[in-house]
């Protein structure tokens, strides 16, 4: 029982944080038909900045959340300006450009903070544990769950109940038709990308309090987010959410049931899903274009 409760909570808290990163990736893919390989690096920057503030200033964690969000949004805008706009239809160019930014950001982080792993910087008020169904569980993980969960809800609300959301859905569903109807899909994409950057920064800031920081999370986070995106379906928030939760739970229970293979589990799940539904769980993109 203890294992199940712990596993579910672990899986959900990890999953929701992952969702925040994956959501940005999937919407960018679905709406702008382009891929930002630096998304994981943005998560990493958010983490390091928040950590730097949280570890050295009292109250730094909360300031850190905001600062991370802003800084990462700035990075996102730069990527948009320098890469997406300049290389509009050039997918390989965008791939290489954002990959280069991933490498640069990773090495900048190494330069500023060195590559020694950093311990989680948890604000004191969230530093204890509570008893849930007989299990001692860290408050910080519950807070992460609540925080990321609320953000997820907010994103869903924006998608389903606001004008921006309907623009996004239209753009993902049928970009040409949307443009024919006068919707500025490109501008919508840009706005959404900025929002996604902010959310990614926030998730990095909170995530560091759970798992600490290393210099390779730029790439590892990207890989997980990508797997979630593929198996959830490009352009689908619901898909990203389901995918993240499934991955989170699989990771949490996998470490107990098949510890030696847990690293391969996300890929295995992705393959199984693709075998059944080639476009991912909620995928809307047509399989062939042109």
């Amino acid at each position, binding site marked *: 029982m203890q294992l199940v409760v712990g596993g579910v909570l672990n899986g959900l808290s990890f999953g929701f944080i992952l969702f925040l990163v994956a959501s940005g990736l999937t919407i960018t*893919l679905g709406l702008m*038909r*382009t*891929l930002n390989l630096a998304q994981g690096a943005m998560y990493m920057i958010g983490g390091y900045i928040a950590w730097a503030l949280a570890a050295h200033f009292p109250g730094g964690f909360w300031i850190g959340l905001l600062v991370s969000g802003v800084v990462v949004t700035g990075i996102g805008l730069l990527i948009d300006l320098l*890469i997406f706009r*300049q*290389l509009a*239809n*050039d*997918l*390989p*160019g*965008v*791939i*290489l*450009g954002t*990959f*280069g*930014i*991933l*490498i*640069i950001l*990773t*090495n*900048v982080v190494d*330069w500023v903070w060195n590559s020694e792993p950093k311990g989680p910087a948890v604000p004191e008020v969230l530093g204890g544990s509570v008893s849930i169904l007989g299990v001692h569980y860290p408050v910080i993980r519950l807070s992460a769950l609540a925080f990321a969960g609320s953000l997820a809800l907010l994103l869903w609300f924006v998608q389903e109940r606001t004008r921006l959301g309907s623009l996004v859905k239209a753009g993902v569903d049928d970009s*040409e038709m949307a443009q024919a109807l006068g919707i500025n899909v490109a501008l919508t994409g840009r706005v959404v990308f900025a929002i996604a950057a902010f959310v990614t920064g926030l998730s990095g800031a909170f995530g560091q309090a759970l798992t600490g920081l290393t210099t390779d999370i730029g*790439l590892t986070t990207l*890989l997980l987010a*990508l*797997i979630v*995106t*593929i198996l959830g379906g*490009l352009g689908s928030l619901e898909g990203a959410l389901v995918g993240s939760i499934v991955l989170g739970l699989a990771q949490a229970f996998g470490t107990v049931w098949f510890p*030696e*293979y847990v*690293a*391969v589990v996300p*890929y295995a799940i*992705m*393959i199984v899903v*693709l075998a059944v539904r*080639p*476009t991912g769980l909620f995928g809307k*993109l*047509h*399989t*062939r*274009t*042109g």
Partner: protein
Amino acid sequence: MVVGEQPALAPQVPRRGLLAKALSFDSAAWVALIGAIVVTPFIFGNVGITLAQEILVLALLGVAVDVLHGYAGLPSFGQGAFFGASGYAAGELIYRLGWDNPWQVAVAAVALSALLAAAFGLIALRASALYFLLITFAFGQLLATMASQFQIFQTPGVAGITGITFTEAAPGVEWTSDVVYWITAAVTVTLLAVLTIVLRSPFGFSLLAIQEMRRRMEALGFNTWLLMYVAFVVSGAIAGVGGVLHAYANGIAVPDDLGVVTSAEGLLVILIGGSRRIGGPVLGAAVVVLLQYAASFVLPTRWPLAIGALYVVAAFWTKHGLAGLIVAAKSRATSSGKDQHALTTDVSTLREGGAEADVV
């Protein structure tokens, strides 16, 4: 690849024999390539051999990526999978089965890569360029993860397979790094020559045409899926050749050979050196390898930054690549009216991937 767009019409090209077509401008490039290969060990010694070896192997990877990207219009971010798989196959054959014949091992390893491509191609080819990119990326990383997690892919205590070496290259010829270099050089030059011919043949042109006029091609009776599938398998095999030579040169197979960094390098090579150009992959590979080498002297602890910068620069410099620049300069020099026209068309349709005449 937007539906309904009219492709640019290709200018009329005088018909020439395949061989002649393939080797015309390029004769100078071939001379340069073979010259550089032969001269390097004598001028630059061991360091030169190591670097030249890396360049040739990376060029092969680049060619593999180009077959898919430049010709079939499928940007793959996972050719590392096939590059690394053959290296691992070679390693396992030697380490676990005790094979000691480099030719047998190479053939088996490349065959495995091709088979892997044949299997994976069935899944990967369902999709648009974007989806294809993601899927190939995931596949390469899946293999890399398996290689670093599962002990069956490791020599004990090592994150990889070591001992990829042989006693003899041929009866009486000891297996040394020099011998490996010459083998690599011979194989690479031969393969490049063969591919040049193949890609300038109707097969190559069909691939190009699929990029832009897929529905028309199908209406004309071409089995476009099959053409792309063949390209995918061929690409996997070429990457496999590169991978096996890489493993032979280093004596090692590591998980990174399979993953995104290797795959990205393949794409980088093509974008810097030039897609669909003879010498493009070699030039691109030379830039990547030499820059990395130079950077490690100039920035001993920060050279990866230079690599990152190279990627960003390459992203913008994707119009023609180095080889394209050379072609353009050459055409200006000869200033033939027909060439100019072809070049203009060529340049303007390069991004849209129009059916290109490759007139030079």
